[in-house]
């Protein structure tokens, strides 16, 4: 009796396991035609697959949204806070100048050329607009729209919630229209960056022209939602989800006379931005070919997806597989107002206590590029900042004569990865390729030297092996990291905490939601240490990130009000002076770049910011319906589905012909 009873008890359990096993094994090839299976596909089998929003799949380019769900799906007014990640930056608006995300160089979009400087002080400029650019409702784009937009910025600045409005209002002194296609601008200070303030600096432009003939009809532009906006770009909003999960764009009939119609025909008739859910379910939709381009996906999921279909590819075919050219990097920000983090020895000891190879292997399978300078090591910046500073890094010594730099970091990492069984064909070969792939080196992992430094600061290890403060209590360090909303950082953060704990630092890794994360970073009161993306410098112009580092922006140690820019409260007069000097300088001046290198040296000497790695921008693509996405061996643009690269992607992709 017992045995039958047992069998009965176990049967459903077995069933469950079978179910799990069934779920685990997958069809050998999951081809494209299966995509979007369900009612709608069955309804129109002749015409090929349809998307969830009813457009032909082969005419629709589908992006996973960058921010998952939009809180303001019907807010499309660029003067206010709006649903920016739904393709407006890329497909909807037009800009005077746009930045090429690949080279970091600006090029004119609505303007005919770069701004013409009218005086020696560099404060007056003349700008000419291209003729024959039309809004999507057929009205021509002229200086009237530009002047109207500037007027609105100045007149309504209290009510406009787009923070960039302030940037322009503080920057521009006066402006006037010369004729239908020409206008002039005078700035408050000598300006060398008009094209990245009134035009795009990589991610956004502070100035976005709005159609006068639409906006002037509104009594209160700040209450105007601008749903289904009249656009300058070659696409218009066709449909959007009131719940904020997706938005569908349709190519304009007259795309040729749009803001960037001159770039060529956008290949996709429809572009859909859609959130396919948390990574666990999203990756399944990706394998089924339900969408073409993902954003950030964890390396393990990508690997799993690639085992199921050969249509999914990463940016590069060898380690570290991903694009490492994002403007921001991951690093540990420390509040230098809080003891013991106010001592350079302690900060250096923390850097030397971190086994970054281990962290990178545990959290991202070793698919990362390390950077010792507090700046991202990208193709644009390497020749300007990294290569010139390499000899200095090699010779750099701490006060006690110790050389902390480890130039062999990357080749050691490659050796470790080989030991772990990663095939040699997946790894870069030769010193140069390895350095390109994994970085020029990082700080040594040297707990002994770290202990010496800690001891010098009066901090010793207790019987349990944990560092204590000079008063004898255990040093409990709080490390704030993003929660599930940024999986890669979440993992990196937990691994950093793990590594520090092994070296004797009692770390409490605290994963937090988005709002608390910003709060931690923005106010003086909460921050101790945090894993953050910071020092976002995309072009050689570092001022965009460092402009706010000055003495007057330093708050008192116990202040709790919002802080500006210098979130890590770095106080270094030499650097402040250099930044002030650079602000009044032509950015193409070699001295400007030299200043940048000197600021970097100051930051390293103080260990003001423990920079960890470039953001591994994974962006895997599924080439079932579209091919010719930007890849390392087809580098016509960076692979991001946002910023100007999205424009290049849209005009360069090719349909595969799969229906």
């Amino acid at each position, binding site marked *: 009796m017992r045995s039958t*009873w047992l069998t*009965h*008890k176990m*049967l*459903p359990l077995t069933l469950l396991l079978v*179910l799990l096993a*069934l*779920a*685990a094994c*997958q069809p050998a090839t999951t081809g494209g035609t*299966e995509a979007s299976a*369900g*009612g709608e596909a069955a309804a129109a089998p002749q015409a090929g697959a349809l998307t*969830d*929003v*009813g457009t032909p799949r082969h005419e629709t380019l589908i992006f996973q949204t960058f921010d998952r*769900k939009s*809180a*303001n799906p019907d807010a499309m007014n660029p003067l206010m806070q709006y649903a920016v990640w739904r393709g407006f930056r890329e497909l909807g608006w037009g800009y005077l100048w746009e930045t090429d995300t690949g080279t970091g160089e600006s090029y004119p979009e609505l303007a005919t050329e770069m701004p013409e400087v009218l005086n020696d002080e560099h404060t007056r400029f003349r700008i000419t607009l291209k003729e024959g650019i039309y809004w999507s409702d057929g009205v021509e784009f002229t200086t009237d729209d530009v002047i109207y937009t500037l007027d609105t910025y100045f007149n309504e600045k209290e009510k406009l*919630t787009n*923070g960039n409005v*302030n*940037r322009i209002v*503080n920057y521009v002194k006066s402006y006037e229209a010369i004729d239908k296609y020409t206008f002039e601008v005078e700035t408050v200070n000598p300006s060398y960056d008009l094209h990245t303030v009134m035009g795009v600096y990589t991610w956004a432009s*502070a100035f976005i022209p709005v159609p006068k003939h639409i906006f002037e009809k509104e009594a209160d532009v700040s*209450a105007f939602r601008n749903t289904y906006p009249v656009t300058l770009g070659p696409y218009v909003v066709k*449909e*959007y*989800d*009131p*719940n904020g*999960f997706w938005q569908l764009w349709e190519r304009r009939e007259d795309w040729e006379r749009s803001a960037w119609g001159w770039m060529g025909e956008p290949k996709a008739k429809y572009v859909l931005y*859609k*959130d*396919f*859910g*948390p990574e666990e*379910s*999203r990756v*399944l*939709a990706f*394998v*089924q070919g339900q969408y073409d381009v993902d954003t950030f996906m964890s390396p393990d999921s990508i690997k799993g997806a690639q085992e199921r279909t050969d249509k999914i590819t990463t940016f590069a075919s060898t380690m570290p597989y991903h694009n490492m050219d994002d403007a921001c990097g991951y690093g540990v920000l420390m509040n230098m107002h809080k003891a013991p983090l106010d001592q350079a020895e302690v900060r250096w000891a923390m850097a030397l206590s971190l086994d970054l190879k281990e962290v990178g292997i545990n959290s991202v399978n070793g698919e990362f590029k390390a950077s010792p300078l507090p700046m991202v090591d990208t193709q644009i910046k390497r020749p300007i900042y990294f290569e010139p500073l390499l000899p200095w890094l090699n010779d750099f010594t701490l006060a006690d004569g110790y050389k902390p730099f480890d130039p062999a970091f990357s080749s050691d990492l490659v050796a470790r990865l080989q030991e772990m069984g990663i095939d040699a064909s997946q790894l870069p070969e030769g010193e140069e390729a390895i350095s390109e792939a994994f970085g020029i080196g990082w700080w040594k992992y040297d707990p002994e030297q770290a202990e010496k430094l800690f001891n010098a600061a009066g901090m010793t290890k207790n019987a349990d092996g944990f560092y204590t403060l000079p008063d004898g209590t255990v040093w409990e360090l709080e490390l704030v990291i993003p929660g599930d*909303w940024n999986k890669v950082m979440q993992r990196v953060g937990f691994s950093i905490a793990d590594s520090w704990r092994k070296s004797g630092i009692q770390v409490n890794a605290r994963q*937090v*939601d*988005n*709002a*608390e994360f910003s*709060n931690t970073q*923005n*106010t003086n009161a*909460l921050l101790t240490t945090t894993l953050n993306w910071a020092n976002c410098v995309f072009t050689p112009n570092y001022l965009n990130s460092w402009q*706010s580092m000055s003495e007057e*922006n330093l708050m008192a140690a116990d202040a709790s*009000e*919002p*802080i*500006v*820019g210098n979130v890590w409260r770095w106080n270094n007069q030499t650097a402040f002076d250099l930044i002030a000097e650079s602000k009044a300088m032509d950015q193409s001046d070699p001295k400007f770049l030299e200043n940048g290198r000197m600021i970097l040296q100051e930051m390293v000497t103080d260990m003001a910011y423990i920079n960890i790695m470039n953001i591994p921008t994974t962006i895997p693509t599924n080439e079932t319906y579209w091919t010719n996405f930007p890849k390392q061996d087809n580098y016509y643009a960076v692979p991001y589905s946002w910023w100007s690269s999205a424009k290049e992607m849209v005009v360069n992709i090719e349909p595969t012909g799969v229906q």
Partner: protein
Amino acid sequence: MGLIQYIAARVGVYLFVLFIGITVTFFLPRLMPSDPIENYIAQLQNQAGQSMDPEDVAELRASLSELYGLEGSLFSQYVGFLKRVFLTFDFGPSFSSFPRPVTEFILVALPWTLGLLIMTTLIAWTLGNSIGLLAGFFHNKRTATMLEVVGVVLYPIPYYILALVFILVLAYVFPIFPISTTIRPGPLNFEKVKMILYNSALPALTLVTAGFGWNILSMKSLSFSTKQEAFVNFARLKGVPPRTIMTSYVFRNALLPQVTALALSMGTIFNGALLTEILFSYPGLGLLMRSAVGSGDYNMLYGTITMTIIAVATATLIIDLIYPFLDPRIRYR
């Protein structure tokens, strides 16, 4: 106590629960570790690249406080909040979707949550109780034990695991249902209803599967013990056919505690629905609530939590009020 007193007592408890719930709702988010106003100011300053004039900051802070309903002492905010909620059902503007009112979002999300919830609760309750009844009535049969075991095994599996398994099996291995929810706007017609049902199938299946295990277990135990009672034995000896015994004698008596239990577990069922919504990106209150926590949107949190409390308390009240009609013996206690 008469029926009137019974109803009055129930409504009294209902109002008290609402009051407690709304009070808790008001004070909880105040403990949240983020400050929307300071965040906004910091964002402005960072974009402008310079510190703002302290006077400007103070002015901005004051005007934002007023807009967000955060001016005055905590107590006066609390009184104002109670007034607005009870009199006008107004939670103020959402912070992250400023300046749209929270109520607008809630009214959009509520039908989704209620629809999913009512449908799945009915199915899980009916199905679970029927199976439980069979298992309890024929408790000696192997099938009965089997059915109980189904309950025992299903019941402890967490929602998120069930959800994931369903997604893997029914949306990936056999792509019958969609992986994520896509509802296109448009008039409510047959096509739209079809679209909604098609997109709700997986979350509903998860809720039903997770919910009916317990109903099997408790109904089985109840009907088993009812079956042993004297009046059932008497009926059996009198020659009443087993089928009639099962439905008229055992089921009717075992049903009452199940109704009570349903009323008491409304809150719990709601919890499950909220979690499921988050997992499936289903556009209901749960998802709204989760993103409100993520973005530190106080007003949205007030609105969504208050709404769930009202919904649960009302459902409980309705079941409580129906109860006397089901059980003539009730002593209104």
